[in-house]
């Protein structure tokens, strides 16, 4: 479980790149890449090691006004946890 005050950042091996062919973002890491949907890209762009999980959710709330806050928070947390599990995101203790 990622604490709300944690400040996630991309793992050293992962880099976001705008993909002119698809018009979306990709997360690149050794030998692999993930094509991100717009929501995933918005979340990862905010994972800069400075913003807390709470702050990230708050910013996204401004962007996705039609989503109920608890639901949005839940989705963001699940996504972040999946990224941590894949070793693409770090959450300093």
């Amino acid at each position, binding site marked *: 479980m990622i604490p709300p005050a944690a400040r996630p950042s991309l*793992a050293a091996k992962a880099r976001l*790149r705008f993909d002119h062919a698809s018009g979306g973002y990709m997360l690149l890491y050794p030998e692999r890449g993930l094509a991100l949907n717009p929501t995933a890209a918005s979340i990862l762009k905010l994972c800069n090691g400075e913003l807390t999980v709470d702050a990230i959710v708050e910013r996204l709330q401004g962007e996705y006004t039609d989503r109920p806050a608890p639901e949005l928070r839940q989705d963001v947390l699940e996504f972040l946890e999946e990224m*941590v599990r894949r070793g693409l995101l770090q959450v300093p203790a």
Partner: protein
Amino acid sequence: MSPAPRPYTLVAELTYACPLHCVYCSNPVDFARHRDVLDTATWRRVLREAERLGVVQVNFTGGEPLLRPDLEALVEEARALDLYTNLITSGLPLERARLERLRRLGLDNVQVSIQDARPAESDRIAGREAFHRKLEVARWVKELGFPLTVNTVLHRENLDRAGEVIALAEELHADRLELANTQYLGWALLNRQTLLPTPAQIESARSVAVAARKRLEGRMEVVFVVPDYYVEFPPACMDGWGRRFMVVSPDGLLLPCLLAHTLPGLSFGNVRDQSVDELWTSSPGLAAFRGESWMPEPCRSCARRSIDFGGCRCQAFHLTGNAGATDPACSLSPDHALVEAARADAARAAPRLVSFKYRSARAPAAG
């Protein structure tokens, strides 16, 4: 003819020269023939044209890419194009100051090969003393803030030490460990009798790797690649011929894989004469096995044809003499007995005294 799909990864083989002599090297056995290497300006153009075509990652490899004095210039060009840059190296010859320069230029990832967890055994495979130097380089990689990939090629002699290799990678704080079983092409095919493991070895190493993957989740990615000889169906070699990967050989051939230019009768254009775009979309060699229309039975009507794309063309040629055959590694291939025979030979566990054929510029004698 199938339309050319979008490529994602450029494998830039900067040179076939290498200080090591690994007995399973994936370079062509006659690599010394390809001496006329591309210059810096041509490589820069290749990077630009590949990126325009959709490529997002570049692996600088070889041979040993550090032998190119213009590696820095190429990393700089690739980063200016916002490509994800990966240096695939033996770690020799490298000074820490050069690695620092590469770091400043934005190189994204460094992959260091380590042949075994033990010094003497590692150096025996590499054909020279290199082990301690490699560990030093791996430590610099981490000290300078790079992510580190450790790649160890597995075979009969080191498979039983998969656990030790994992422990070494952990000690080096690797971000990714590739436990890549030897694929029996090129130099490895020459040394197959010595290198091909028993099924019990594969199984035991695989369970060690699976346990480590679980234990290290989120910290170190552990990849275990089973050799084609021990699977029921072949993997999608290069993710399909001329599909996601493009390889440019040191002398400028645009290829679908590392060894496609060893197949007879295929013509691959050169980036000296044509643009990457032209070659990718209309080179006859790339068109030859792209898509499904070339497939023989049993591939043609097989439900897995869009998963494995018929397997490896080079393996088909080097085992059957026909590059257009179903990969003999596939249990459905009419030539599968060739692979079964090699496996049966490997399963006889008695120690055999077969000497290695080390990679060298002199072509080895046949047989």
